[in-house]
């Protein structure tokens, strides 16, 4: 007699599920090391930049020893070691005085160049010319510095500065002490900084204009607007955010520039008396003074605090500037 096949699918034939193992009470849930720690190991390298930034901030804080220079720290008198005058006001003002005119010039030039490149020039020509502008970003600042110091400075000293002095001397700031014959000073510093900020502003504005959808250009032109009108009424409003970010990042570059400024600006720790005089920037002073401060702990504390001020300003400018651009694409090329 053939036995009846067991009814596999009846509820009675089901095996009961095994009891779940109760969760372990000691740390790690009783899982071995290889399951507990190792799976998280690949996450670790992702925090390299966080670690470097944190290390920089913590080390500078530690080296400043929280030395309290009082409100005088933000004052304008700096004499340095052996005195009680440790103000950084001169340097912060000097940084702004060089960076803001440079930003002004490089934004206007950058807008014009970006518009010419995106709107007016044929693609082949503009691609070739854009390459040159991007190359400006790659030139080392020390090369700008030696070129400015040896080659450009004599022109400023013998031609541009005297011309400004004679023709615009009536305007406050353009008169006063005659410009030095060496040509070093604010105009040369602003000129070099303009060249250094120009590729960044141009690149970001160009990217912003290029990201305008093609349909908007075409519908503007089809409605009878000229290219200039399309630009003014459609493209520029659309790329406001990109232009704003260009201003911020260009400013960050100009504000933090060190070596070129230390070479072409007549470094003196006082406010500029007129547009031709020398002054000092935070970055250039930090660079010039650090090695000479070796062994003087008060001086080193002050320099660490100066570095923190510079870091705070440049980091803020960078973070705010990048809020406006969601993603870096072509900007990668110049290392912005």
């Amino acid at each position, binding site marked *: 007699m053939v036995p009846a096949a067991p009814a596999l699918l009846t509820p009675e034939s089901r095996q009961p599920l095994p009891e779940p193992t109760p969760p372990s009470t000691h740390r790690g849930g009783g899982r071995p090391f290889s399951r507990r720690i190792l799976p998280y190991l690949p996450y670790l390298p992702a925090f390299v930049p966080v670690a470097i930034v944190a290390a920089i901030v913590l080390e500078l804080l530690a080296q400043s020893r929280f030395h309290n220079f009082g409100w005088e720290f933000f004052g304008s008198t700096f004499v340095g070691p052996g005195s009680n005058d440790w103000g950084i006001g001169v340097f912060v003002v000097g940084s702004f005085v060089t960076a803001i005119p440079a930003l002004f010039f490089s934004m206007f030039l950058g807008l014009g160049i970006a518009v010419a490149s995106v709107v007016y020039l044929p693609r082949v020509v503009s691609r070739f010319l854009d390459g040159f502008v991007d190359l400006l970003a*790659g030139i080392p600042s020390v090369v700008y510095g030696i070129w400015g110091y040896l080659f450009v400075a004599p022109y400023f000293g013998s031609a541009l500065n005297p011309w400004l002095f004679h023709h615009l001397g009536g305007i406050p700031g353009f008169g006063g002490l005659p410009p030095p014959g060496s040509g070093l000073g604010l105009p040369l510093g602003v000129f070099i900084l303009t060249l250094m900020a120009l590729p960044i502003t141009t690149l970001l504005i160009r990217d912003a204009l290029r990201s305008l959808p093609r349909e908007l250009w075409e519908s503007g032109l089809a409605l009878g607007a000229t290219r200039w009108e399309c630009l003014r009424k459609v493209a520029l409003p659309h790329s406001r955010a990109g232009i704003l970010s260009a201003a911020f990042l260009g400013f960050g570059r100009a504000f933090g520039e060190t070596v070129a400024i230390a070479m072409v600006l007549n470094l003196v720790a006082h406010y500029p008396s007129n547009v031709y005089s020398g002054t000092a920037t935070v970055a250039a002073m930090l660079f010039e003074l650090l090695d000479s401060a070796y062994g003087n702990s008060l001086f080193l504390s002050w320099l660490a605090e100066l570095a923190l001020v510079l870091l705070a300003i440049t980091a803020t400018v960078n973070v705010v500037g990048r809020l406006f651009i969601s993603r870096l694409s072509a900007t990668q090329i110049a290392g912005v």
Partner: protein
Amino acid sequence: MERVVLPTTAAAGEILFDRSARTRWRLGFDRWAGRLLPLLFLIAILPILDLAYWTASSALPTLSLHVLTDVNYKDVDQLGVPLVSTAEVMALATGLAVLFGLFGGVATAEFLSDRAAAWVRVSANILAGTPSVIVGTFVFFAFCIYLGWGFSMIAGVLALAFFITPYIYRTADLALTSVPRHLREAAYGSGARPYQYILRVAAPIALPQILNGIFLAMAIGVGETAPIVLTTTNSVILPNSLFGPVAFLTATIWENFSAPAGTPGLAIALQAAFLLLVVVVALNIVVRLIAARYRKRLEGLYQ
């Protein structure tokens, strides 16, 4: 010859041939903007050509093979030692930065959640926007003084490595996140493990872009002055120890740029500037060539 004027409004057939003063002004303004704005390129391009021409013409007359290749002892007029030392420092710094940046970028793109990645990217951007003098100051305090390594080659290498890490990190991250989504989903969907996806699917696509980032970082690093000058002592011989002094091209320029005209010191600064310019421009051209190629490839993949 009569010029056909484009219609100014979409109202069909209303004004097809408008020769009013206002239209002529609008079209003329546009035409002159197109003629004048490209001239602004001159303001950017003339300085760079002038800089290149001036550097070459003031360096080349005194440059000879002997100046470049003699590494036995650095006289005041020889560049062999700074050249070789620069190559060594750059090799070490780039190696370290690739180690930090490549693994970091891959981990950020592949393993972190979007939220965590956004935060880590902010810190990378902060680091990339930090002036190099700050990184130099940090290494000066932390390694030269606190750890007692003194002004040494290793401190300079570390300073450069920290400074160029974010550039490599960001390109590695960007290269991996811009691998087309369907490839990623297909790989994981057919059971690939993360390392298999990274090595066999993503790497062949992302590699040119990552290489590009490495070249870019080298071009930025070799031109940096502040991190090196603040953390090393200049040397007249080739480096024989990681904790000894070392020469560097940019530091050579910085130390000699204000030498009186006609002295060997100034000549060496100009030669160093010329060599630096050649190296940096060459690296930048390589970067642009690679970028043009991978952009075409990526566009092909998305179709």
